[in-house]
């Protein structure tokens, strides 16, 4: 079991430019079922992917692959023709929010937006558009979602993941890789790893991801990686203390970050005394979460949290 994605996920890619093509190829090599693409100016064409199979991904495949991905004009047409039940957005920032809304309108239940640099106002609008629709948005500005050896949607390196017991949710890309790597090395492995992204306005938040992992029978514990800015970690702490039945470990990045400066991610900023690492760590500790003192200790903190059960 896993959350959000698995063996039966059929993925549509929105934006088949250089980046979209590169990562579609990696996803196919991993064994992801990439069923179609949307790229208005190239509709009607077929994009051919061939290469050597990434055997860290889905098992039981030949050593090489050749996949033809048809390109459509609209998401609705692509969904009708392919039965896609997830979409990954690589569309450039000025048009990405529109791509998200188009996928939502076409009824795609899971939209993963990788694009970095989308104007906040566009995301404010997109979130408003998604209200009341049965759609889950992950991102933007995130590495994506992966269920090891089943399905990889996004830009994370597949081979560092290994199937296992821990759900991973994070605002940061490379810090997720660091965490996943540690969970692979200490044998806990991952059920699903979700990058929720570093923007101030995003789709899935920590609480959404925690709920999903709490409901997933295969997930035995959750590793949550936060950073400075906003109050998503404090909200998560509140939810954990009221509802979470599984052990949680966490690391918060940005203890040394100066106030008023955006630390790379648009959302990583301490402003008006709000969003400090100290406040987040305090809230999580109060909720019984095992905190990793340094990023090197994320795997062992998870181990400690699991041993308390």
């Amino acid at each position, binding site marked *: 079991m896993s959350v959000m994605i698995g063996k039966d996920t059929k993925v549509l890619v929105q934006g088949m430019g250089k980046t979209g093509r590169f990562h579609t190829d990696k996803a196919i090599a991993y064994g992801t079922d990439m069923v179609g693409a949307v790229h208005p100016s190239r509709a009607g064409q077929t994009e051919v992917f061939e290469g050597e199979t990434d055997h860290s991904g889905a098992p039981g495949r030949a050593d090489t692959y050749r996949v033809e991905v048809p390109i459509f004009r609209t998401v609705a047409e692509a969904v009708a023709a392919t039965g896609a039940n997830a979409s990954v957005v690589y569309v450039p920032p000025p048009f990405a929010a529109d791509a998200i809304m188009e996928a939502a309108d076409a009824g795609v239940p899971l939209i993963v937006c990788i694009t970095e640099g989308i104007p906040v106002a566009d995301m404010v609008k997109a979130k408003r558009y998604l209200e009341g629709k049965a759609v889950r948005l992950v991102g933007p500005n995130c590495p994506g979602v992966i269920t090891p050896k089943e399905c990889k949607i996004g830009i994370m390196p597949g081979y560092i993941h290994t199937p296992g017991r821990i759900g991973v949710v994070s605002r940061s890309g490379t810090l997720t890789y*660091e965490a996943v790597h540690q969970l692979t090395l200490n044998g806990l492995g991952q059920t699903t790893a979700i990058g929720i992204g570093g923007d101030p306005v995003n789709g899935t938040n920590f609480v959404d991801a925690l709920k999903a992992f709490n409901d997933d029978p295969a997930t035995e514990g959750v590793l949550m990686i936060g950073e400075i800015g906003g109050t998503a970690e404090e909200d998560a702490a509140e939810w954990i203390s009221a509802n979470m039945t599984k052990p949680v470990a966490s690391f918060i990045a940005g203890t040394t970050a100066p106030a008023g400066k955006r630390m790379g991610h648009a959302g990583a900023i301490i402003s008006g005394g709000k969003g400090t690492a100290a406040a987040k760590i305090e809230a999580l500790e109060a909720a019984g979460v095992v905190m990793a003192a340094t990023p090197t200790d994320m795997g062992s903190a998870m181990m400690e949290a699991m041993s308390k059960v």
Partner: protein
Amino acid sequence: MKIHEYQAKALMADRGIAVPMGRVATTVDEAVAAVRPLIEDSGNPVVVVKSQIHAGGRGKGRFKEYPDLGGVNVVTDGIDGGIEAAEARVRELARQMLGSILVTIQTGDEGKQVSRLYIEQGIDIATELYLSVLLDRASSRNIVMASTEGGTEIEVVAEATPEKILKEEIDPAFGLLPFQARHIAYSLGLEGDAFKNGVRFLDALTKAAVELDTDLVEINPLVVTTDGQVMALDGKMAFEANALFRHPDVAELRDVSEEDAAELEAKEYDLSFIKLDGDIGCMVNGAGLAMATMDIIQTVGGEPANFLDVGGGAEKEQIAAAFKIITKDPNVKGIFVNIFGGIMRCDIIAEGVIAAVEEVGLAVPLVVRLEGTNVELGKQMLDESGLDLVSATDMKDGAQKILELTR
């Protein structure tokens, strides 16, 4: 992106938001020349001389060269002495303020040089209020924040008297609705003409915020004049960098002299760089990992010299540029390169580091921690390059090693 007060007020005036009359001056003569038309047009003998820097707290700030002189000065000499007296006082002030260093609560001890003044008409103030439009992350919407406690920093108000802060959410589909504007105006205690003007002000301000893709619009204080006008006595606007592409006119307002030179240079190479006060330079891929690297340096007892995220898909040239920016900082006693290659391949990092060292040399210790895609190839390249560097097995090991080498 921040802009100056005079620029923000020009953008506001263009959008029907009431602001006092004012003129910008970069020389003493320009400052003096602004006085007569302002007094004549406004009919008010008072003018105000305001330092234009990208930092708040100007009024309470003091000049390094003139410890008794504040960053904002009200000139009342015109009340009894006429325009000539006001001009004489403005001449004296401009001579002192222009080119001098203003230190405020937001500039740090080094302060900021004042190279522009804004000369503004005097205003007969009845009440000072607070108003801002900003993103509320919890609701994923812009909100209007208003308070009767004008002139005070809103963080202070939020801490001491949170009940005095009023918030109205702006639905992106509708904008600020008229009843919401009325609600805010009533809560601010506005009546009569001031009420009508306040509602009009709120409508224009929220529309401008949406139209211009602002990160923040802050009017503190918003003033009600003795004759019922509602005006932005101060005006701060900051713009969202990701949306500047659709506002080329706003992008032109950037004042690079207000920004850190190294941070600007980094931006040219698509690097995210922030200078800090420590002595251990860091080069990392990914914002979260870069922050975590700073944190772990401090955990082991060191101080990071910078935040530097080379991004997910950096090329050799960017890595080399990043290396050069770090080594340019005279405080840097050692460098810690921490890479978890995903899309970013470790061999590209190795290539960039080698190229940079060949070009600029290496005068300080270097610790490299590589993990992820093509890690073996990257390590091999570094080993064979003959560079004098130390390899680390993980982040903590790397942080400890660079600390030992710099102490």
